[in-house]
């Protein structure tokens, strides 16, 4: 039967490299911005030039050092209590990263489980979960988290719980729809034809196909989690008052925005850059993870 033997086509030299290439600039920029955010959080005690809580009322509301009246000791100036803005920005990244990681992962865990469940069982299970999602999404999310945080009480845990409780629907909805689509594919039928049961088909065959989608969603969700944490700390129901957060910095800066606009502008800039970084990273990873090459 040698006459009908066939030779495999040449495989690409390195799949990792090819993946990185497919991710392109988005992957690099997103990864770099996200790395800066994470490093700032991890290395805050080393990077921050001052204690973020240390007050120096004699040098309050100093502008950034390059502006008129700036002081070289306070690179990005000081707030109304004379605390170093740069140090506070860096320490704020800790809260942002913790909330983004834990809240987004938990929301993903719950959302993906329910989505797979609804998408594969169909019938009344699907009806129940889908209606639940519909009802859930009818509430304004921020209002819902504020109410939740207010009920559970302030603190890091309640911020995370509020985000998870509100945002699991984002994952559930998408995963449910995509599970239904994937289950109609021939490979899913073929997997059932080799005798795999429902849970194995879902875990071993369907879930790996959802990974690119989930990575994107997870990155987007982390950005959203950062935003929600900012909102909650802006209204003062996030972490304890002595922990610096971007939200509380905006709230404080708002009162003196005409005298010292940078105090409010700088945390806003940090938020924008973090969220864009996470979105780009998610987008780049989705392209890089997709094993079917796009030309």
């Amino acid at each position, binding site marked *: 039967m040698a006459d009908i033997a066939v030779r*495999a086509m040449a*495989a690409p030299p390195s799949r990792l490299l090819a993946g990185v290439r497919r991710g392109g600039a988005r992957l690099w920029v997103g990864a770099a911005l996200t790395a800066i955010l994470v490093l700032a959080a991890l290395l805050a005690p080393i990077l921050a030039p001052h204690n973020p809580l240390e007050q120096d009322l004699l040098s309050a509301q100093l502008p950034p050092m390059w502006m008129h009246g700036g002081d070289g000791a306070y690179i990005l100036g000081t707030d109304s209590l004379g605390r170093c803005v740069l140090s506070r920005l860096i320490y704020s990244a800790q809260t942002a990263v913790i909330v983004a990681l834990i809240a987004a992962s938990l929301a993903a865990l719950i959302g993906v489980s329910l989505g797979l469940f609804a998408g594969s069982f169909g019938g009344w299970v699907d009806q129940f979960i889908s209606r639940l999602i519909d009802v859930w999404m009818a509430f304004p999310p921020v209002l819902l988290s504020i109410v939740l945080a207010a009920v559970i009480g302030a603190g890091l845990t309640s911020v995370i719980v509020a985000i998870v409780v509100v945002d699991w629907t984002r994952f559930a909805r998408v995963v449910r729809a995509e599970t239904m689509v994937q289950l109609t594919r*021939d490979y899913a039928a073929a997997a*059932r034809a*080799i005798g795999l*049961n429902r849970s194995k088909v879902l875990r071993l065959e369907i879930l790996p*196909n959802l990974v690119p989608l989930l990575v994107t969603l997870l990155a987007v969700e982390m950005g959203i989690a950062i935003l929600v944490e900012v909102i909650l700390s802006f209204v003062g129901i996030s972490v304890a008052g002595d922990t610096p957060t971007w939200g509380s910095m905006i709230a404080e800066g708002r009162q003196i925005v005409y005298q010292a606009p940078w105090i409010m502008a700088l945390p806003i800039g940090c938020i924008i850059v973090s969220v864009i970084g996470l979105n780009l990273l998610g987008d780049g990873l989705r392209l890089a993870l997709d094993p079917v090459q796009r030309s």
Partner: protein
Amino acid sequence: MTAALTVDNLRIAIGDTIVLRGASLEVQPGEVRGLVGESGAGKSMLGRAALGLLPSNASIVSGRIAFEGRDLLKMSEGERRSELGRRIALIPQDPMTSLNPVKRVGAQIGRLLRHHLDLSKRAALERAAELLTEVAIREPERVLSLYPHEISGGMRQRVLIAMAFACNPSLVIADEPTTALDVTVQRQVLQLVERLRQRHGSAVLFITHDLGVVAKICRSMTVLHAGRVLEEGETAEVLAHPRHAYTRALLAATPRADRPAETLRPVPPALIDQLWSDARRLDWLDVARPA
């Protein structure tokens, strides 16, 4: 001798539409039976029903499907699943989409082997390489480490055939395995199925719309139209002396190398209409008849 597959008076409906109208057929052990019919005849639906893979909106109205004498419809889920992929295997229609796009070929064959044969990961991969050698794939180790999109359609179909025969099945349902392939690859795939069938002694239900394919590899054949069996018998006998007008029309519509193209006759629309109205009248009679 118990038949490998017995389908008895099977009626299947999708919503209000009836797709199988009391179809019956038997596949004897070791036999290759062709199941022929035009699109919409219900032939794939019959194969899927035997595997328990009907779409969720389809339901079995009545009838019986037995594998080696045991009723598949009355088996428990677990029992049926332990037969699937091991004793009853499927060669799917479209090799391009029937492998999981995000898993390496080796992982997919390994999954099947480990599911049914209780092998270690390493042993499963070694066995997978042997299986690929059996279907004439060179450098099997390398192919095992590739993703489905990195190999050709013909190779994917070989991988799927290797998987179908991996656990020594006694029945293989081949759902138009050659339809998506070009003619040269088709021939190789047919030879391969024939060779593996002989080696494993499996019975094959070969679903196809191509009478040429049936003539090549099927000992017996069943002609299906509008969910009804119109004719069945030994392939040579049916092709030489077709009894049903539809079979004759199908034969006249099949291109052959030894006859000029001008002699080709499309199946007369009047005949098709007649058959469909017969089928629908039967449905009506069934509905009218008190249960």
